[in-house]
């Protein structure tokens, strides 16, 4: 698998606090990569670095290199809006806009200049189908997105993220607020989406990482302890700290 994301010697500071320490990591294309580690280990910080969400936090300073598709995303000529179209994000809490189901999905394409009704209809249907939500909502697309269940809302957020045809989908604990059945649906969905998108997910649920990811990266205190094929990492981890963490000895 070819790496689509190439991170080299990345340091990130919040004021004086160093949250990421010399991160080097290649993330393969069209695969699911899971970040695991105890709270405060830097996994979400690194995820947010990939679409420059950290830019919004005052006092953040970054050194090193993050390349996506061979392009340095922290260089001056990168437009953050364009980057975020390429690198979509789904958050822990489903956060649909207080608009209709249709308008939620059409929001991104409209923002990027799609005005044609037929074309928008097609994007909305296709995105909802890919997010395995179409059959449940096709008859009331004008209804408020807030009327959907939590699991449906999260799939709507995924549909909204893929409506702008990103290359990469970041998921920050995207199932931790959901019940087990909705979680399972999202997990199945993510497995299907990897045929089209590169998925990077942060999860507190180690078994979720073991179930659905292709590669797993274990973080501790702002550093990568181990990064490997998921089966290997969960069967024969090389570092004792990884073994301790996945076996529940700390964290």
């Amino acid at each position, binding site marked *: 698998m070819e790496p689509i994301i190439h991170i080299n010697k990345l340091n990130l500071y919040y004021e004086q606090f160093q949250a990421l320490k010399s991160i080097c990591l290649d993330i393969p294309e069209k695969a699911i990569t899971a970040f695991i580690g105890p709270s405060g280990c830097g996994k979400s910080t690194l995820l947010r670095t990939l679409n420059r969400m950290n830019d919004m936090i005052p006092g953040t300073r970054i050194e090193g290199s993050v390349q996506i598709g061979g392009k340095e995303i922290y260089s001056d000529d990168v437009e953050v809006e364009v980057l975020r179209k390429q690198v979509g994000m789904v958050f822990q809490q489903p956060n649909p806009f207080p608009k209709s189901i249709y308008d939620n999905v059409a929001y991104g394409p409209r923002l990027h200049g799609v005005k044609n009704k037929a074309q928008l209809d097609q994007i909305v249907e296709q995105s909802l189908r890919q997010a395995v939500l179409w059959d449940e909502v096709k008859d009331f697309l004008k209804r408020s997105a807030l009327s959907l269940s939590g699991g449906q809302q999260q799939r709507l957020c995924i549909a909204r993220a893929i409506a702008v045809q990103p290359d990469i989908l970041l998921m920050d604990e995207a199932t931790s607020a959901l019940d087990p059945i909705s979680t399972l649906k999202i997990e199945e969905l993510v497995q299907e989406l990897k045929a089209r998108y590169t998925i990077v997910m942060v999860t507190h649920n180690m078994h979720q990482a073991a179930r659905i990811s292709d590669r797993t990266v274990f973080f501790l205190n702002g550093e990568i302890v181990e990064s490997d094929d998921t089966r290997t990492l969960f069967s024969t981890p090389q570092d004792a700290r990884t073994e301790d963490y996945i076996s*529940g000895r700390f964290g």
Partner: protein
Amino acid sequence: MIQRREFDQNLEELRQLLREMGEHVERALRESITSLQSLDVNKAKGVIAQDLKLNEMEEEVMDIGSRLIVTQQPVAKDLRRIIVAFKISSDLERMGDLAVDIAKVTLRLEGQTLLKPLIDIPKMAELVELMVEESLQSYLDENTDLAYKMAKDDDEVDHLYSQMISELYSIVVHHPDSMQQVMLLTLVGRYIERIADHATNIGESAVYLVTGHRPDLNQ
């Protein structure tokens, strides 16, 4: 997240059960051989009766292990500890059955006299008993060196076995009427040799537990 303390206690319970099963097998093997040497039918019956306990312990290992998988969803070495416990308990249970088979030979020979005092069979059994002990110890101490050392003894067992077969063959040539006893003693040799193979399996399990890779010690 695994509730570590209770989980560790349960894993320790599994270890202790396997230790007990190992001691049981060593004793069963020893007593089946002494029952054969002296054609002591009561002792042989004791070995057969005791086997029930070994079967129960195997079931207990299966119960604890499957409960831990369901409730704790262990990974990495924790998962291997349970997989290995399943495998070792089933090896030990089979070893117990083979000791019972030896005891049954004693029952079949009731009222007869042995053609000659047994030499190679007790020698083999003694060596195999040591293999059983060492294989279990390699698992309990997670000592892969001991597992490899133990597996080497299997060559000597095989050597004694073929020596025994040649000897019994020459006996049957000169005393065709001893056919039944010779066949039964050949089977005993085979049973002991099979127990050694199971000990080697336990050594392999010990290596798998420690390294995550399956060696072939049975070459």
